Structure formats: structure tokens, C-alpha cells
């Protein structure tokens, strides 16, 4: 791992810390007394706040997870740098794409 990847992984971790706590806290708070998919969508659809919240979350998770996966594959299977970079970028971009689809589905009108 070089310096740029190290910084990207640490910064994405720092961004995720408050987002994870907010995500878990809101889940526990909102589910009191039961909650339906319709109720959730009524709160999230059209909300710029939740779009930005989960949009940033998805990008951070994708960056953090892709670099972490690269390290695990490097140390476990000793793949070459080119292979590692290809897997890292593929995993990261697919994660962002899938995450963006989910975020847009629940926040766009």
C-alpha cells in the first residue's frame, strides 16, 4: 500500500465514523413501534439531506472497502500490483454504482 491509498482509506474511515453512528441511531429511533417501507420512503423521497447523507456514505464505503480488499488479497494471495489494482477499481466502481442506484431509488421522487 502506498501513501495515497493509505490516506484515502484513513480519510474514508473518518468520514464513515459519524455516518455509521447516525445510521444506526436513526434506525433504532425510527423503528420504535414498527415502521413500514411506505413510511420510510415518505420520509426519504425528495430529501436532499438523506440523498447527501447516504450518497457520501456510499462513496466512503466503496473507497474504504476497495482498498481494504486490495490489502487482503495482496497479503493473502500475493497477487501482482496490476491484478490488485484491477480488482480494487472494479470492486470500488461496482460498489459505487450499486450504492448510487439504491440511494437514488429511496431519495428521488
Amino acid at each position, binding site marked *: 500500500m502506498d501513501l495515497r491509498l493509505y*490516506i484515502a482509506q484513513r480519510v474514508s474511515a473518518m468520514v464513515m465514523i459519524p455516518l455509521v453512528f447516525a445510521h444506526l441511531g436513526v434506525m433504532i429511533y425510527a423503528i420504535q413501534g414498527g415502521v413500514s417501507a411506505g413510511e420510510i420512503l415518505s420520509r426519504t423521497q425528495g430529501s436532499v439531506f438523506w440523498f447527501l447523507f447516504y450518497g457520501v456514505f456510499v462513496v466512503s464505503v466503496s473507497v474504504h472497502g476497495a482498498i481494504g480488499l486490495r490489502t487482503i488479497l495482496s497479503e493473502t494471495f500475493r497477487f501482482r500490483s496490476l491484478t490488485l489494482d484491477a480488482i480494487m477499481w472494479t470492486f470500488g466502481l461496482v460498489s459505487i454504482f450499486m450504492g448510487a442506484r439504491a440511494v437514488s431509488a429511496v431519495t428521488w421522487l
Partner: protein
Amino acid sequence: MPREFVISGLRLFWSTAIMNEGFSEAPQRLVEDKKDTILSMTNETTKMSVKVWRGDKSSGSYQTFEVPRQENQTVLDVVTWIQQTQDPNLSYRFACRVGMCGSCAMMVNGAPRWTCRTHVNKVLDGDTLEVAPLRNLPVIKDLVADMDPFFDKWVDAGGHHAPSASRYDDMPKISSDEPERAEANKSIECINCAVCYAACDTVAQNPDYLGPAALQRAWTLLNDKKVDDHDAVLEKVSGKGGCHNCHSQGSCTLYCPNGLDPMRAIAGLKSATIKRALKRGG
């Protein structure tokens, strides 16, 4: 040029240690010194089972010896007893026998240790002892590990003095109270025994990783006012095998026989490299 100079210096030092390999090459004075100990060990009736790694870089296996127990007995005493009374072909490395030279480090019951400073009483597992060459390094023969990768990485991490002044300049005045000097002082007692390198799981998984000793050396250079080019030090530890590979598992600090804290030094390097990158704008 400095690189070749440092490597030749390190090899010269280690060649004195290597001289003690093999019974026929052991200095006579040492044999005389050890005679009493060896005789008294032979007279003991209580025995322990010692598994010793035998082989070379391509293959090997453990050979078991029955060795007399003594009240005061180091692992190095045990290995010496085996070589001098059981098998003169056993190769191992030692020099000072008092924990100063760092040449007798081996794996003892799976953990890297200075064998000269490790009492059998402290590490005996039931009545068995397992002695192997240092982990994470190629084996030359039996208990002798090839230290070249370790010293090469030490040099790769900038572990040599790059002069910043000529003989006509004044000596820099450095107070021992200065924070940088105090920080450097915490690491300068490293004697390059490679115990931390053998203990490191990141080295085991990533052959490019420079390892705790080399990076700790870079940290002392970074805190040394006599070293001019601190950017060059940070550049050398920011590459593919650099400090950012460290997972902070802490085996280096846990096993260092000198009580040093390479993990902390590496954390310092990580922090310094990030500050430098942010100053430069990425």
C-alpha cells in the same frame, strides 16, 4: 557509495559472528570457558527433549536431542551443548553471549528471542523445547538465517548517514532536552538482532515490507538534526514496502528484547508522511 559502504560494514560485523559456526571453527578460549558448564550439564540426570531445526534453504526437519537440565541454563547453552557433545555439524550463530551483539536470535518455542538471554526455565513447555532459525528470513543451514534481506531493507529505508556538513563546518549543537532528540533517543538502542522482523506478521505476508527495525531507523534519522534531507527519509518510507503497510499489530514492540517501541516509531512516520503530503497538496 554509502549503500555499499554500509552493507560491507554490516557484513564485516556479521562475519565475526559467523566465525563461531561449526565446532572446528569455535575459538579455543570459548571452548575452555564453556568446559565447566558443559561437564556439569552432562552430569545432570534430569533431561529435556529439545527439537532442533536441521536443514538448509530447500528442505529440513526437526531433530530431537535429550539434553540435561540445569538450574541456570540459557537456550544458547543448550544449543552449544548439543553442538559440542552430540553433533559438531550443527550450525548456529552467536558472538557476545551477553545480549549486546544481537547475533544469536532464534525462534524458541515459536517466539523470536535472544537465545543468550533466554533462560530455559522461562520458556520450557513441559519438558520440551523447540529451537528454529529466525522466521521471515531464508535459512542458510540449521539455525543460521540469512540476514541479507533484513540488512538490505535497513539500507533501503535510508538507514545510513547522509552527511549534511563538511569538516569545515561547526558541529551542530544538539541538547538532549530537545523533543526531536528525546524522540530519536528512544530508538537508538536497536542492535539489529531482527527479532522484531521475525515477529512481524506483515513481513510474513508481504515480502516487500521494510519491517520494524528499518522503519524505526528511518524514524531516528527523521528526528536527527544532523540529517539534512528529511524529505528523502520520508520519500523512502512512503513507497510500496513502506510504513503504510504496517497493521499496528504490535508484535515488534511486544518481542523487542531491548524494550524498544518500533510500532510507535512507525506510527510517527505515518503521521509525518501524511503531514508532508498535505503540505504539498497531495
